[in-house]
């Protein structure tokens, strides 16, 4: 096992696809479930988090016992939040016993600190979730459906629909108006007389009124 210089607070080096875990997790059910699926490296003197997914991202694990014991866990969360270089994901054991404390943890973690919080029922569930988080970290960002840039629909189609919202303009007049006044801005600045070249007098006045009257 390689070791990074002790000291704790500095950035932790995590090879791709590995997890650096705090020494105290050695032998736990959580660690055993993960071994074989991801490579775990135990390290002593990790001050801030329980698991490091990368040098920038870590997991803070709050056990059922931590929750019942009181607010002690909060100090750890704040230290990660204030570290500046770390994104902290908080995993909390939400069981029948600790359920009642969950709303308070959630408010503190998500709403006050702005960190991500994920509840699990036990260490087995946590191991599956952490493996999933590692996979999320290692794959390309574009594989995440919520980070993929969606292609825009044809602006022409939207423009026709926008112009159709003007009172008196339906799907026939909209393209005709856009052919004469090819941008919304130009259409908005058209005079009644100019509009009359495309549509009738009544509709021309309606369009002009729509753009110019104060709402």
């Amino acid at each position: 096992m390689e070791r990074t210089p002790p000291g704790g607070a500095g950035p932790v080096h995590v090879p791709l696809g590995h997890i650096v875990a705090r020494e105290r997790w050695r032998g736990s059910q959580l660690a055993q479930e993960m071994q074989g699926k991801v490579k775990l490296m135990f390290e002593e003197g990790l001050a801030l988090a329980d698991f490091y997914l990368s040098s920038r991202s870590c997991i803070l694990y709050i056990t059922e016992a931590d929750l019942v014991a009181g607010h002690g866990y909060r100090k750890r969360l704040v230290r990660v939040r204030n570290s500046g270089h770390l994104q902290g994901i908080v995993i909390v054991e939400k069981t029948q016993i600790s359920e009642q404390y969950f709303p308070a943890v959630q408010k503190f973690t998500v709403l006050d600190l702005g960190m991500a919080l994920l509840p699990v029922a036990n260490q087995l569930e946590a191991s599956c979730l952490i493996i999933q988080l590692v996979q999320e970290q290692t794959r390309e960002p574009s594989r995440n459906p919520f980070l993929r840039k969606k292609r825009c629909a044809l602006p022409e189609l939207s423009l026709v629909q926008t112009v159709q919202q003007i009172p008196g303009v339906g799907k026939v007049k909209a393209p005709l108006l856009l052919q004469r006044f090819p941008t919304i801005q130009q259409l908005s600045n058209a005079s009644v007389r100019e509009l009359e070249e495309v549509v009738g007098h009544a509709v021309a006045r309606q369009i002009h009124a729509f753009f110019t009257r104060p709402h």
Partner: protein
Amino acid sequence: SAAPSSTSALHVPEVHTAPRLPQEGHRACILVDSREITSGLEVISSLRTVHGLQVEVCPLNGCDYIISNRMVVERKSQSEMLHNGSKTKFIEHIQRLQSMFQRICVIVEKDREKAGDTSRMFRRTKCYDSLLTSLVGAGIRILFSSGQEETADLLKELSLVEQRKNAGIHSAVVNPSKCEALQFYLSIPSVSYITALNMCHQFSSVKKMANSSPEEISACAQVTHQKAEEIYRYIHYTFDIQMLPSDLNQETVKSNACSV
């Protein structure tokens, strides 16, 4: 719809009906999609009665709750997140919200249990975990709720946070004379209901809006500079009839008879 002659209505008094009270926790405004009346009635009544928020039910077209100028909240039942069946639909929906809102929060709500029904026990799936991690990876907030009342409480807390960050909703009242303008603004791609509403309130006319700079759009519509640029480009985009799909193009010619 309103008659064009209603120009005389000064919009000054209306602004005062929804004042920005500095006191926290009260009279904050939340927009609720009208579909939530059937699926989340208890959320709406809790927001009104327990938390005393101003709740405006609007046709939000699939955005469950808009709690600030930039934030939308999607309420999702846990059972729907667990199964692969609705995954694609959920992803597409969130992508649509991403095109309109700067910040998104998903509230995962536990399904209501019937007495004695043990068949709907929560069994965590890989699909559920992968959705959660993708959401976390994209910076989308997730909150977990045990039921509709707790969801209402979380919505209130979120709205307080947003108010503290000066992104609170000023006024959700739509003057009938502004309805047509609202529909017009709503048809601009990736403009949310609250952005359209802000445009209605802040621009004196639609013409004024169409001739605004990105900076003015950003300030009036309460959107990021990037979003304002996007709206500005749309207003100045030069229409080319050749780019319309041909079926629609021909339809234009022959639909004279059947146009309403």
